[in-house]
């Protein structure tokens, strides 16, 4: 009972603080972009970013000593619920809060935590992730970008690909080869300033017509030794740990339609574009498919919440790999159904002949095809679950 009372006290505290600090003009509004992922906010959004970051509630459970909220998982749950109730969405996020920060908390030195975490929490610095390379996709450890040890610094040459947000990013963390003779034990985890001489970013245009990804080229880039996280040549484990946090963060965000910018709710599209026959959708077959889609999404959200609860007790587990698989399946299935329901209205590309929402649905549908490739392909995730969770051999 005492614990429940404490939570009630905290609920009041959270309500009061949000009442005082959350600009009511932003209620139920999506942020125009994510601070920490390329967006420079202004006006009320900027004020909200600053207050939330100052309070540390952008990262509610991170230690207060680095500027985090210092909340228990239960309190963080109460905060999230309270924010949902008043339609308050955090504009601070991106790689820093989702993956890099949690990894740093696990493996960083005190000095490194003090150096990087406060800016992540406030959304001041935008991070990108240097992982994939032309010859290192699913076989990530085959990466060749070489950071040669020059005594007081590393000299970096090579390239990264599929780097989200690299154009806007201030900094990159990533995995780089420091020993060419050893595949797994020759990788180091480094950070680097994207303004360093010799860093060049080229956007990649996707089938959706958008360019969320980039190529990044390194030519004799000087990376200071202090930017090494963990030990030299032992960065592979850190890199893998970060991917676990990535999958866990997908688990934590489950149920939110904005993960890939899902356009609008499926029932409304069904009503608008298919129509009703009495109290039921006119297309009975589509009605049952919508049910299946929504039930899968519901089960996914419940599993994400359960895994998050369990991770709070025992740390991220390899089982979250299934959530990445499910997330991709759910998104892609939903986007395909939306396009199908729109009919010929779901074939627009640009111009006045189509509504903005229709064109956005087309772009989002095309973008969703990457969901089963990015962050570890569905096939690689199934391999990982087969190996690490089920204990099968040969993966």
């Amino acid at each position, binding site marked *: 009972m005492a614990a429940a009372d404490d939570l009630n006290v905290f609920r009041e505290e959270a309500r009061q603080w949000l009442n005082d600090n959350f600009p009511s003009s932003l209620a139920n509004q999506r942020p125009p972009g994510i601070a920490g992922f390329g967006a420079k906010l202004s006006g009320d959004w900027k004020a909200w970013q600053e207050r939330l970051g100052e309070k540390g509630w952008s990262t509610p459970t991170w230690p207060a000593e680095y500027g985090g909220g210092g909340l228990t998982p239960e309190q963080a749950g109460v905060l999230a619920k309270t924010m949902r109730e008043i339609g308050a969405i955090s504009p601070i996020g991106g790689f820093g809060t989702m993956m890099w920060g949690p990894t740093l908390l696990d493996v960083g030195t005190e000095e490194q935590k003090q150096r990087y975490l406060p800016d992540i929490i406030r959304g001041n610095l935008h991070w990108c992730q240097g992982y994939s390379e032309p010859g290192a996709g699913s076989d990530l450890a085959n990466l060749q970008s070489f950071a040669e040890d020059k005594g007081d610094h590393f000299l970096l040459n090579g390239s990264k690909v599929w780097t989200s947000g690299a154009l806007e990013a201030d900094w990159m963390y990533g995995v780089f080869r420091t020993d060419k003779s050893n595949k797994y034990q020759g990788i180091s985890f480094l950070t680097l300033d994207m303004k360093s001489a010799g860093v060049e970013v080229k956007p990649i245009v996707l089938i959706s017509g958008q360019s969320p990804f980039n190529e990044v080229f390194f030519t004799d880039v000087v990376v200071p030794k202090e930017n090494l996280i963990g030990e030299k040549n032992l960065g592979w484990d850190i890199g893998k740990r970060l991917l676990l946090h990535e999958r866990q963060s997908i688990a934590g965000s489950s149920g939110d339609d904005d993960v890939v910018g899902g356009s609008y709710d499926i029932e409304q599209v069904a009503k608008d574009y298919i129509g009703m026959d009495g*109290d039921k959708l006119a297309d009975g077959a589509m009605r049952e498919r919508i049910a299946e889609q929504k039930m899968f999404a519901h*089960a996914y959200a419940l599993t994400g919440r359960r895994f998050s*609860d*369990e991770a709070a*007790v025992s740390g991220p587990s390899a089982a979250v790999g299934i959530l990445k*698989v499910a997330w991709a399946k759910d998104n892609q299935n939903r986007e395909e159904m939306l396009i199908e329901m729109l009919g010929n209205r779901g074939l627009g590309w640009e111009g006045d002949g189509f509504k903005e929402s229709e064109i956005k649905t087309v772009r989002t549908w095309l973008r969703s095809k990457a969901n089963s490739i990015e962050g570890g392909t569905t096939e690689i995730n199934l391999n990982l679950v087969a190996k690490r969770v089920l204990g*099968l051999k040969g*993966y």
Partner: protein
Amino acid sequence: MAVLTEEQSMLKDQAHAWARDESPVTSFRQLRNSAAEKGYEDNTWAQVATMGWTGILIPEALGGSGMDYATFGVVLEETGRQLVASPLLASGLVGASALLLGNNEALSQQWLPRIADGSAIVTLAVDEGPHHAPDQVAVTATRSGEGFKLDGSKVFVLEGGSADAFVVAARTSGTAGEQAGITLFLVPSDTAGISVSTLKTADSRGYADLGFNGVEIGADAVLGEVDGGFTLLDALLDRARAGLAAEMLGTACEAFDRTLEYLKTREQFGQVIGSFQSLGHRAATLFMDMEFARSCIEAALRAIDAEDPEAPILCSLAKCKAGEFLHDMSNDMIQMHGGIGMTDEFDAGFYLKRARATEATFGGQSFHRRRYISHFGI
């Protein structure tokens, strides 16, 4: 798995050990071979009652232990693993729930202590056709003197051949298809005018069809409100669905565990077959389905305990996801075992047959998809 309470952990361990040692699938095989009409062994049922599982939901004052549905689910999952045949779900969960929700003090005093100690079996008689359709109740309950007279028939009543009383959904007004006009009655099975025909089913468990021919019952047999029984029936069915889903999860988890073990030991082409991606990926996908089903079932049971208004949606979700996973898992158990999976000597067939029986009970996947989506205005 959700973090368990100390009480739940103890019950889980107890149920796991008992089912493994005292009522494993080999016991079910003996039962099946004996072709016992009843669909369970008296000795098994006596042990289930002795351990107090029949009284999990029943208040201490009436001989039970007053625990919740989430706790019951923990036990049912373990008995489901070994295909334990007993009226535990039909009577201990469904029958007891009917009385606990039915707001009839005299009937509760009379029957709940007997359900708790296993001396009486009380089961629900709802469906009348090949598919679960609770609003299609057509059995009539016409006013007769101070009470009612029941006419019509019920089908596929769980443990119908051994029940001491039936909770009968009957129509006091309106016509089949309407939710209004349904009333629940508690009717002792030895009441004059009831005929019981036991069924021989693929899953070798106890079911019966019932005939009601001018069955006279008193006004004191009513559970809940006359004409307003659908709400009670729906709440009762949701408890039945969530409980059965927990049992189905156990059945499917055991099928998964046994199949995974086979993938790790069976060798072909000089390597274990689990090393082939086509099988490893299927196993990983089934693992996902298993985790998803578990999340839904635990959420549904907790929602019932918390009297959450979302409980009906979650119960349909839980029953559907349990059904989908058990359906696929029982098929893949056979496919991944190859020829041995097709033999009667191997247990896979038992899991497959039980799977389909439980899928159909209290609404199959299609029923629950329709029930779920109707909550969203389309």
